[in-house]
């Protein structure tokens, strides 16, 4: 699998570390809403198809990347910097909505 890092170019997956599901939305730090925290820490979509993921180029520039990967074909349709939208922009919630619509 190759991931095209916006800084470093196409690199083998061996240079990257999976840093988790990109659809997670971290509750407000002071929030005591246990359901929301539980969903953030444990609930995952596990879609068959496009999946929003966070990868770190740990063997390169160490940037965190927002990657859309097809779990069936490993095709990567987009790679962007995580910092671009503070990590929880429309990207994550749109995919979640889409997945919920399907279910």
């Amino acid at each position: 699998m190759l991931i095209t890092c916006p800084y470093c170019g196409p690199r083998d997956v061996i240079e990257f570390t999976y840093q988790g599901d990109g659809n997670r939305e971290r509750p407000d730090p002071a929030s005591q809403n246990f359901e929301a925290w539980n969903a953030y820490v444990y609930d995952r979509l596990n879609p068959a198809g496009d999946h929003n993921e966070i990868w770190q180029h740990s063997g390169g520039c160490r940037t965190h990347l927002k990657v859309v990967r097809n779990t069936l074909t490993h095709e990567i349709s987009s790679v962007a910097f995580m910092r671009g939208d503070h990590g929880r922009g429309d990207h994550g919630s749109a995919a979640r909505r889409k997945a919920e619509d399907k279910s």
Partner: protein
Amino acid sequence: MSPRRTDTGGRVDRLKTIRFTFDGAPYTGHAGDTLASALLAKGVTLYGRSFKYHRPRGLLTAGVEEPNALVTVLKGKVREPNIPATMVEIHDGLVAISQNRFPSLAWDINAVNQLGGKILSAGFYYKTFMGPVFGPLKGTRFWMFCEHFIRRAAGLGSAGSAKDPARYERMNAFCDVLVVGSGPAGLMAAKAAADQGARVMLADLEPLFGGSANWSDETIDGAPAADWARRTVAQLAGRDNVRLLPRTTVWGYYDNNTLAALERVSDHKEQPGKGEPRHRYWAIRAKSVVLATGAFERPLVFPGNDRPGVMLAHAAERYANEFGVLPGERIALFTNNDSAYRAAVALKKAGAAVVAIADVRPELSPEMRKLAAEAEAEIFAGHAVVATEGGKALSGLKLQRFDMTNGTLIGDPRSIHADCLLMSGGWSPTIHLASQAGAKAEWNAARQAFLPPKPTQSWIGAGAFTGSFSTLEALAEGRAAGLAAAGGQSTQSMLPTVEAVPGDPDPAPVFEIRAKGKSFVDFQHDVTAEDVRLAHREGFVSVEHLKRYTTLGMATDQGKSSNVPGLAIMAEALGKPIPEVGTTRFRPPFAPVSIGSLAAERFGDLKPERLTPMHDWHLANGATMYSAGLWYRPMIYGLSGETVEQAYVREAKATRERAGIVDVSTLGKIAVQGPDAALFLDRVYTNMFSTLAVGKARYGLMLREDGLAFDDGTTWRLGEQDFLMTTTTANAGKVMQHLEYFLDVIWPELKVHVTSVTDEWAGAAIGGPKAREILATCVTGTSVDNATLPFMGIVRGEIAGVPVMICRLSFSGEMAFEVYSGAGYGTHVWEALVEAGKPFGLVTYGLEALGTMRIEKGHVTGAEIDGRTTARDLHLDWMLSKKKPFIGSAMMDREGLIASDRLELVGLIALDNRPLNGGAHIVEEVDEANPHGSIGHITACCYSPALGKHIALALVKGGKARQGTRAHVSDSLRNRFGPVEIVSNHFFDPDGSRMHG
């Protein structure tokens, strides 16, 4: 020259004799021979015993798909089992032995298994050995009793236990076009792509490029095809943009056109060349791939089709034309298609008598009749072989009239005397790589074969791989594929001309002749046609279930010859067409791969290692080193004659009585800098850091998001916006990633930068009652008294002219100081400290003494912060700030994490004064015969010189409440049982008066 060896022709060099042994007996062969061809030339018919029934087996094929003739090759003390004899190139000194026989190949005791064929049918293991026990001869317990005998009787070669001294290496390669297979199609593709200027790699698993050109006896451009192949290869070899990889099996097709290949660099040599590895693992990233992997001929399924002397037709043709070896003197053929007629002509030309050709088809074309006449063979159209005769070699066979429209046999059988029977059941394109690459194979009814699917990755097929079985088609498709792969335009130049015997590529749809006797589908796993039908009768209708129940296609040959016939028989049983039954997906590897090649250089001398700046000093001063992850750290500095325990007890005692110094350079060190650094640390740690004064340090604890403990360490405030965080040695990388994740993903608005500085600083911790006095004699530029350097204070000064940073903190429980200097000055400062300590009796100590003192103090490390414990479990709840949220604060108070019966940290004292063991269970009542009722386990243990007792830290259920009570250790693995007292984890100096001074 042996009678089986022809006088001329083929790739062998008859002037070069090579000596080797097989099962201890000396043999000779010629350069260019495989073990199979050399033995066949000597008239050897018996090569192995079958997996389950121990039936005698001969050569079925001449290539990688060989299921029968598996051998073990011995090199020194190293044995490599299960290599097809067809893939072993002989060399002087080669030692090969047969497998799965006892006491010898010719006389095998377990051959009686043949008589018990009914018992060993499909599903034998499941039926006999699983489930509840009914009577003495059933169920799981019976399996446990029988396993030893069955494992010995059923099987392949045995692996060796000697360490493999061979070297393996890995190569990463990039190319525009990777061509897999070097037959006419592959060679044309490589040439066409190379002519376009593309960077080309050409790989073939055989030692000699050319594929079928080496044995087809056709002509290309007026020359023998083998000469054309050699000429083309020579042209390719001379080009800078082409890399040729013979003996290289491309075994995996992965995402993004990444392919894995195994090159057998020196297996065919008596000694590898200087610097040559045994195998080389190639990771190839190709812009485009040409798959020209050819096709495998299929056996026909009929009674006795596994007898030694029964061989695939093309294999015999190959032995005759490529190796100059005749597989027999009186040869019969049995076929459902035209391709076998060419083999008949080839064998006749080579000097054998072709006595009969049995063809299941009632009508034969005039061309085939002409070929049969050329071979002087009698034709039996509309006939089938219904039995074979002979023991360890074929002596004859029986033919019977056969109606292929309904599979019935008519009339009386008729005997034919022959010592070799060639069979051809049609051809299956070698689509394994294409299947791995992602798509489902497509059934072609005319070819009676699965053809490659539409590409889901960037590959192009050519030749027999696509179901185009003629050489002319192979050349045309190969050139087109090479051009397209290299991005070139089609060319007007002429294709080479081909002279070949004619033939219809489509076989008759006949896979099996149903008659009395065992008809084998999977030769390597001894699966018969009846086994497949039995599986169907017992309700296995899915091809995936059939495969697992019968183990069809699950041997080391991965069903290369058996998949399609097995599927056809299943389809017939189900009454469904083959495509509806479907096929299983091929998975990597295409052929077995050596584990050594996958590990390549990543072990032994070439494993990466991390050394502290003082590493050489430790070695020069008697340290025994200990590997901790990639790091090497002193374990003890043993005196001559000292045991490890004596050494660490001496070191720990001297530190508590006088002073000791230890290398702590391996601790993770992260510079946390920026306007929001303090705020960031407040969020990351459970306790406050924004309130920490500049020039002070604080012990900090981190949790994970789920509320469990993650890592601990001290963080030093060097400036208003400048912190130096230390982590445990093992977690340095994980903590760094944790911080980067939160800064990059969760809080990108924070103005903080984190930098790993582990390797920039050398660290030495000096502790003990004399530590401050020692420092005072060698530190300049600052005082180290209590007022200037209080507990958790930081000062800057110099030691021996080198700037140092000194922080007063303690892991040992003594008054202690961590002295950090630039890594390049680490040894210089260390030596100065050691020198200054001499008058005070300073000792150097290693990890064992460090561990002992931390256990005495009850400090936690990774053994206790094990990913299951909370801050409360470790009595660190005093560090959980209530004034702010932090990572993990929302989840740490979940019901399960605050339950009263959680494993909590305690101390243990052995009441029988014997050593305790890490990992031992703690129980309330000892029951040596039936250990049970664990209430926890030991995480760390030592002999404590300070207490004069064997002590341990342990995680025990509701441990805090149990302090002051007794329990027992129960360790049946090491047979250690005995009473212990549960105490506080703070064994030594619990109020900290020693470190506060």
